[in-house]
């Protein structure tokens, strides 16, 4: 078995419209090695979320019109829906974007995790199940008792940790993280990202992190892909891209990053000398 976990080639997703098709992605191709951290950046509408949804086969209204998706050596595009369902979270899991609303408000956290086991044919005794879910929650830094809570009793950061715990419940070889921290404050964002990185390394999964914040990518991923209007315009090691961006769009993304650089300050004329 080779070390390649995922190989996406020539992925094109189109949304049929009244007048012609809208292409959400065109000929997107990249691959991931075991345990690799891959980042996809781009602004809204660039096709990065579509790529993830296509991988999960959860496009609503869109269809993969060409290309191939190969996960652990198996071609995904030819699988039937039931096979695909079993593969979700078992081989490829998702950490969603809207952590605030991604948990069912009327079910206890534990029950929502338990459903994953139940529907993937894994059965435990009552106390064994409780222990397993408790362990899972401790791995993301939550108390085991959290399984008896309802989502509205948790903070945003805690909810996102629950989602991360779910994503590693079945030890998949690939985790897809769709802007997992975009709704969080910066301190919580760093906590959640650190947790995500730690559990990903623990189970040895590869990860695709989607986002629009280049700075966040810079510190989390090893390989970076830049998407622009449905196309993957640049892929490479993250440091190389930062040092030597090939595309104007990439350069713009890097240059527009806010920084604490003194040069970036707007200073009222005349005030500068007096203050230095």
């Amino acid at each position, binding site marked *: 078995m080779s070390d390649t976990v995922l190989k996406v080639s020539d992925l094109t997703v189109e949304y049929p419209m009244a007048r012609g098709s809208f292409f959400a992605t065109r000929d997107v191709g990249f691959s991931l090695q075991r345990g690799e951290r891959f980042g996809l950046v781009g602004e809204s509408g660039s096709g990065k979320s579509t790529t993830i949804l296509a991988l999960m086969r959860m496009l609503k209204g869109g269809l993969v019109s060409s290309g191939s998706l190969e996960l652990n050596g198996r071609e995904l595009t030819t699988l039937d829906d039931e096979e695909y369902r079993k593969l979700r979270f078992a081989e490829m899991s998702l950490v969603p974007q809207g952590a605030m609303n991604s948990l069912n408000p009327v079910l206890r956290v534990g029950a929502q995790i338990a459903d994953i086991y139940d529907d993937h044919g894994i059965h435990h005794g009552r106390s064994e199940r409780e222990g397993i879910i408790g362990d899972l929650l401790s791995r993301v830094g939550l108390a085991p008792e959290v399984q008896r809570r309802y989502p509205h009793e948790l903070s945003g950061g805690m909810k996102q940790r629950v989602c991360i715990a779910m994503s590693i419940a079945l030890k998949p070889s690939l985790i897809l993280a769709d802007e997992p921290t975009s709704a969080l404050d910066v301190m919580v*964002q760093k906590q959640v990202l*650190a*947790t995500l990185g730690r559990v990903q390394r623990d189970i040895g999964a590869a990860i695709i992190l989607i986002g629009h914040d280049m*700075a966040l990518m*810079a510190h989390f991923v090893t390989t970076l892909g830049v998407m622009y209007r449905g196309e993957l315009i640049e892929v490479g090691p993250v440091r190389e891209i930062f040092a030597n961006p090939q595309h104007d769009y990439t350069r713009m993304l890097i240059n527009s990053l806010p920084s*604490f650089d003194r040069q970036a300050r707007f200073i*009222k004329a005349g005030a500068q000398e007096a203050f230095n």
Partner: protein
Amino acid sequence: MSKLLEISGADVVYQLGLNKTKTALHDVSLAVGGERPSITAVVGESGSGKSTLIRLLLGLQPPSRGSVRYDGAEVGRLGRTGQRTFRREVQAIFQDPFSVYNPFYRVDHALMTPVRAFGLVKSRDEGYARIEATLERVGLKPEETLGKYPHQLSGGQRQRVMIARALLLDPQIILADEPVSMVDASLRSTILEILFGLNRDLGISLIYVTHDLATAYQVADTIVVLHGGHILEVGDPDAVIHHPQHPYTKALIEAVPSPDPDQDWNLEAEPPSPSAFLPTGPIGLYHTEPLRAVALPLRPGETPTTAAAVQLAIMAARPSFQFQTNQ
């Protein structure tokens, strides 16, 4: 020279249940405007009390203790004309540049309504003349903007129209509540530059409320760090950002990823939870440097300072410049 909007020693307490209360702001003092028109950045995460502060400053929420004064008079006790003047002269720009437009009307409505309601023009034509001039001032072409529905404009354009709306009223003070957080990255600095220009060229004072330390650092004369309804640190941006003194400020700055991949961000060490930085006992703001104050446990016998005093000291240390007069 502009009028002074001043909060002193204000608490805001919300009644949640019969005997449950929540204090959204604790003993907050701020001063905006006055002799030296300034930009004050209030930095806070969610739950810091930012939105309560905005409501307080706009006179939409009375303080439970302390006072909010405009041009020397208590805002809650302004007479009819005073109230109107306050409404007109203290304007705001909000985060979401879409929901501030009534989808039922063209953007003209958002510009014409305030001008007419405050009786600033005598006729529609005069109103349009004034609107067109103001749109140009914020870098928009009137012919490409007027007559459109809000959804026909880009996010950046919509936010600029909102700035124009505020400007039309000859404001003394503008409260900008996260004005760039929903604008595409490429347009952020344009918007910030316009806001900065209002201060530099027109002498309008601004309060820039944001969660983003970097843009706060870019535009502000003073940074105020708000957390859990307490002001924890206040000072000159260079000092606060590059030499933070309160542990919360430090943790906040460390949590911001640097745009340089080579600079270590230390993702292995999870930062403590923000609630760990909430004060456990009575606190007061104390000067650590002439132009900076930090929240420390209350020292009996020593009078604490206020954020407003630090703000005014920072502005007083600035050389004065000649402002163009507003229209």
